[in-house]
């Protein structure tokens, strides 16, 4: 399994991001990725990044600031509508990693 690290961002950094994180771990595992997640909120991204490397950021609340990490909207993971598209977008970004 390839290891990837994803920052999951929602309003409070707890509830929806935990839901998104568990979904990402399950769905990306089917594509051969071992996913480590950190749950965050728009106000604490800076400190949660903490200078560590993240491959991807999946957000269910808008993040306007740029952090030099690819960003994907993850709302589809909660509703199931457009879920495949979210995963495909993630896979496309992850496939370009070394």
């Amino acid at each position, binding site marked *: 399994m390839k290891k990837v690290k994803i920052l999951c961002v929602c*309003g*409070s950094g*707890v509830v929806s991001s935990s839901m998104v994180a568990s979904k990402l771990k399950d769905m990306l595992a089917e594509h051969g990725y071992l996913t480590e997640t950190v749950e965050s909120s728009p106000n604490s991204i800076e400190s949660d990044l903490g200078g560590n490397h993240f491959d991807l950021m999946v957000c*269910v*609340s808008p993040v306007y600031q740029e952090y030099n990490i690819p960003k994907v909207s993850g*709302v589809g993971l*909660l509703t*199931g509508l457009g*879920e495949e598209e979210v995963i495909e977008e993630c896979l496309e970004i992850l496939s370009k990693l070394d």
Partner: protein
Amino acid sequence: MGMIVKELIDVSLDANDSEDAIKKVGKILFDQGYVKNTYINAVVDREKVFPTGLKLKSTSVAMPHTDSVHVNEPAICVARLNKPVTFCHMGSADNYIQVELIFMMAITDPNKQLDTLKRMMSVFQDDEAALEFTNARDNDELYRIAKKYLN
């Protein structure tokens, strides 16, 4: 551990708008002792900044919540609105949807309550399950359905 209790089920809630809905559902949680007196305003404020409406296949729901400091004991209040009210969609600032079902959450530790959160997500993604919630005829039936899917 089940987070669904009968006292937190309301199959016919009247609300004028999303704020009114949050206040009324929040009051149910407060009256039953699950949340502190700061909870309702915290949820109202949070919903304005980070909306929680979700458009599903056949219906729309909202899952208002707030930080655990406002919560005494974990619980979910499930309410169906007699008349849908407008919520903003999660992740957007101007995508408004008509919400029929409210799953208002009192969360103390998302890691401990992750199973419930995952079950709730499964309901959102399962059209038939979501329709069972919207079609419940009375409190008893909504309670049974909520227990079946979320406990």
